[in-house]
């Protein structure tokens, strides 16, 4: 286990000395609210240095999962390990190395930006000097407004202050839940650049959730797509966003039959899932012609075969069933 690599002889494990490459390990996580199952049997892992994109439509279970990662919600089932320690039994040790912004960046509006930052620095046990706090505000572009009350700030400024608060104790892991919500294009670009800065310059591990696929596409190194509380797919961004790894949506007269036939064929490794009225496969674009020929040999009666090059198409396809308004094209 990764715990073995803790570089400490003290009784209390110190997350700062954790050297394992897997920073977060989530196993079979579930959350039930009365009759509603918000998250079901979710497993994933985040490696050191990742910008881990957590993608899903509104209500997919992203925020519930992130709240479980930050101990705001208790899981009904499953296990969360962060820095090789169980979150349930080592909450405080772990949270000393975690910074987070959950949904809106709500801070104390009657305090100034500097006062908010200083308050959370003390709360996190970080003995930061005024100079260091001002440096933090400088990083998020708020140094000039340090002494202004937060109630005078725009949404984008509050979001940047929220990120500065998340970073005030120099955490190894940063969790950002929908950080671009409610921001204008400039605010979105600022947050995106901040995430890239944290990952590339400061070598932080970042988990960022969003329902905005374009945002995730621009920052994430690995991506998890979640829908109705379950994992749909997980992989490196380069693999998921690689145009050569084309998603093919297949519609046949009998999808169940087609699924069984494909499982028994050489194409079984390409099968992704069967959702709605389509079977999804992932393959190199050059293999599509051969696949088409093999469908005839497998006695699969084809209705349509649609290669999808855009991740958005893919995202919408794998999270199908959530469309509330008919699609129109210009």
């Amino acid at each position: 286990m990764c715990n073995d690599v803790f570089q400490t002889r003290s009784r209390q494990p110190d997350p700062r000395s954790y050297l394992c490459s897997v920073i977060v390990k989530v196993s079979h996580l579930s959350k039930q609210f009365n009759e509603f199952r918000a998250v079901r049997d979710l497993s994933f892992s985040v490696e050191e240095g990742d910008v881990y994109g957590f993608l899903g439509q509104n209500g997919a279970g992203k925020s519930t999962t992130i709240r479980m990662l930050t101990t705001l919600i208790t899981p009904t089932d499953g296990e969360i390990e962060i820095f090789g320690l169980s979150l349930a039994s080592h909450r405080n040790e772990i949270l000393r190395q975690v910074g987070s912004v959950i949904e809106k960046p709500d801070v104390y509006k009657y305090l100034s930006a500097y006062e908010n930052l200083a308050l959370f620095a003390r709360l996190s046990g970080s003995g930061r000097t005024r100079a260091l706090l001002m440096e933090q505000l400088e990083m998020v572009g708020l140094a000039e407004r340090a002494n202004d009350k937060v109630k005078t700030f725009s949404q984008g400024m509050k979001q940047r202050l929220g990120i500065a608060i998340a970073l005030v104790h120099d955490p190894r892991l940063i969790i950002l839940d929908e950080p671009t919500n409610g921001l204008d294009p400039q605010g979105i670009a600022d947050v995106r650049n901040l995430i890239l800065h944290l990952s590339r310059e400061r070598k932080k591990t970042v988990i960022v959730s969003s329902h905005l696929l374009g945002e995730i596409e621009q920052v994430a190194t690995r991506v998890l797509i979640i829908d109705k509380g379950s994992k749909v797919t997980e992989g490196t961004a380069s693999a998921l966003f690689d145009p050569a790894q084309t998603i093919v949506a297949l519609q046949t007269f009998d999808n169940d039959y087609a699924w069984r036939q494909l499982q028994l064929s050489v194409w079984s490794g390409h099968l992704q899932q069967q959702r709605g009225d389509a079977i999804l496969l992932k393959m190199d674009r050059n293999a599509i012609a051969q696949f088409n020929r093999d469908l005839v040999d497998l006695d699969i009666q084809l209705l349509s075969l649609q290669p999808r090059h855009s991740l958005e198409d893919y995202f919408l396809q794998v999270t199908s069933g959530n469309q509330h308004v008919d699609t129109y094209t210009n």
Partner: protein
Amino acid sequence: MWTLIQIELFKIFRRPRTYIAFAAVAALIGVIQFGLKLDGDAYIAFMMRDINSSISVEGKILNGYQVCYIVLQALLVHVPLLISLVAADMVSGEANMGTLRLMLTRPVGRTKFLLAKFIAATVYTVLLLVWLAILALFLNMLIFGVDDLFLLKSQYVVLLRKDDIFWRYIGAFGFAALAMTTVAALGFLLSLFAENSIGPIIATMSVIVFLTILSTLSSIPLFNTIKPYLFTTHMISWKEFFDIKVNDANEAIIGSIQNPGRIIRSSLILLAHIAGFLGIGIWVFRKKDILS
């Protein structure tokens, strides 16, 4: 823990809402002082109307101690509302602002977090009563001077000598702090169940009004059974400090209290309520999913 308490106190005293209670107490006492200064003799005449013929009182009845007693009788009924403005907002207000989730993602245990908040609310309560004492006791002593305290009870009168009064007020304010801390604990508990401040503030006052009515319905045997266990019954036990013991010759025993056991019993019941409210609060909060 000390850092947490300091942070909570910092937040309380940076909010404008906190000072509403201090301003309200100052305004109410100011109005009473103004009225009694202008027309205090008429008030005393009205108070003494039934016993003027049988008792002759020398000295200055309308003195600082008397005014303080009048203020306490009038205000201690309303102070719970001012206490609940802050106490019932301690957790629900943070949930409403969205800062609760930010606080709880820090490396601080929920029990410690809640205890720090409650201690801060208690400090606020005590400071409000200190403020009340400064204005109602010390300021009135300056404005109206000091003399013996003459109190009309339902079946008898009490006359306390001026050098035997000050310590009684200290005891009464100390007891009032305990009673108001009970109100704060109730408001604090109710604030765990809401995500806005108004609900818990109204709920706290409703519970106090409801229980006070039950406490006063002495003619119904059922209510008499539960009355000793209601904290509202014991909140007025500060008045016991102003009942003096008498000897066989019906002379007052200086420095005595008629029924100290009643004060102790009331204090213990209030403490039990505080512990109960806080214990339930911690139990609920440790299990609570933060969805705000």
